[in-house]
């Protein structure tokens, strides 16, 4: 059985031995990258530089919360606001794989720039098993290119270190609990962020809409879990489907987009069952989204597909 204490001890020992000089970690503030940072930080202290990139596709308040987290962990960090760059790079891009690859490459560009300035030799990532399994290789089909695997250039100068490579999320959470990190139960959020929760072109305007919808879904579900009305899903969010349907709002014809609500149960994301959200919670989500987003959204649907045949995220 997986033993968190042993894993921490062995990994910190190995990192201490193997890292000479400075290292950079891609820090999103999720469970994987936070656990990885703490392990590497224990091994090499301030020689580790955490870099958080605000891609413009983060959730509401997320980047400021991540900054707080890096402060709380006393990490030596850099905060890069690259939202304009990302919006620009994704202009006119609709293919999900293309989106993921562009975003992955942009991340690496930023990391390489920081690495050059700071004379860093190692890139550390919180990659876990499903990331590289689903990204595919010579043998396996590509289900989706995870940004931290599919975007890596072949001629990258930085040496890659991925201490959690063989682990699944439930095991990383065990490490987080052992390390007493308050983000241990935080739901997963994909590296490409809201860009892959917008079907089609991920414009700044659409991002605002899906960000608000995600915020409402998260709030309503978290409140209901706290009240004991429902079990906590593995992941829960909104997807913007830019297809127009007809509605009526205040005696006036409406013609707006669709928001799909997605929530699934899983322990490792390799298989998932859609969550049974109680009717009253769905009801509150539906009313809140349509009332808050006015003429932009006039229809809410609930995704009732398992994985397989679907995946958790829509892109």
């Amino acid at each position, binding site marked *: 059985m997986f033993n968190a204490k042993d894993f921490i001890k062995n990994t910190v020992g190995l990192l201490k031995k193997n890292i000479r000089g400075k290292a950079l970690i891609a820090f999103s503030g999720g469970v994987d990258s936070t656990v990885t940072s703490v392990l590497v930080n224990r091994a090499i202290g301030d020689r580790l530089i955490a870099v958080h990139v605000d891609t413009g596709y983060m959730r509401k308040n997320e980047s400021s919360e991540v900054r707080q987290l890096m402060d709380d962990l006393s990490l030596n960090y850099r905060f890069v606001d690259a939202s304009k760059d990302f919006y620009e790079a994704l202009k006119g891009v609709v293919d999900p794989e293309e989106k993921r690859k562009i975003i992955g490459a942009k991340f690496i560009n930023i990391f390489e720039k920081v690495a050059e300035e700071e004379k860093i030799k190692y890139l550390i990532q919180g990659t876990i098993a499903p990331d590289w399994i689903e990204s595919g290789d010579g043998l396996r089909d590509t289900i989706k290119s995870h940004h931290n695997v599919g975007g890596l250039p072949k001629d990258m100068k930085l040496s890659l270190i991925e201490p959690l490579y063989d682990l699944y999320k439930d095991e990383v959470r065990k490490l987080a609990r052992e390390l007493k990190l308050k983000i241990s139960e935080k739901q997963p959020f994909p590296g490409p962020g809201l860009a892959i929760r917008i079907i089609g072109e991920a414009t700044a305007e659409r991002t605002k809409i899906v960000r608000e919808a995600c915020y409402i879904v998260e709030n309503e579900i978290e409140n209901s879990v706290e009240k004991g009305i429902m079990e906590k899903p593995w992941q829960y969010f909104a997807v913007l489907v830019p297809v127009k349907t007809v509605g009526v709002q205040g005696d006036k014809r409406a013609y707006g987009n669709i928001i799909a609500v997605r929530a699934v149960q899983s322990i490792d994301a390799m*298989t998932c069952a859609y969550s049974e959200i109680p009717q009253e919670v769905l009801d509150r989500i539906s009313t809140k989204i349509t009332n808050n987003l006015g003429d932009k959204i006039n229809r809410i649907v609930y995704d009732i597909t398992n994985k397989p045949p679907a995946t958790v995220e829509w892109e």
Partner: protein
Amino acid sequence: MVKIFVIDNGGQWTHREWRTLRDLDVQTKILPNTTDFEYLLNQEVNGLVLSGGSPRIGLTDKLGKCSDYLEKADFPILGICAGHQFMARFFGGEVKPSKIPEFGKIEIFILKDKIKLFEGVPKKSIVWESHNDEVTIIPEEFELLAESNTCKIQAMHHRTKPLFGLQFHPEVEHTVYGEKIFKNFIRMCEK
């Protein structure tokens, strides 16, 4: 400690098979399907799992050296999905594209009593599937063990050798008795 290796045919859940075995305190690792049988003998393995595969390889592909293992091994082998389909083809059965491919949650029915692999598993249970092809004719030396409404050959075993084939995936979390099936397989490898 019992030693069971996972032969990687390129499935999405190969690593999950490795993890299930490791969690059950088995000494395990993932090996490419091009590994020589002699290497397995030198390693003194007690059993093998033949993983599922990348798209459609169960239908016609040779799956590396899997035929060597099936021909020469005297230890138990568990074929999963493409591994199961290949086992059927190797022993003279037939694999064809499914009329109704199964993805996700499916109910299966165990058809035989007193099968060691299914000890402690109820007659009806929920399993997770992901296949476009299936075994349509079971080899003569094999016996049918389980079916679902949309796929008639969900599980089979060799009548005299410790060879087992499963169309569904016991290694994933949502297959309710998956861990139980692995435990039964491990017990057979221990002997």
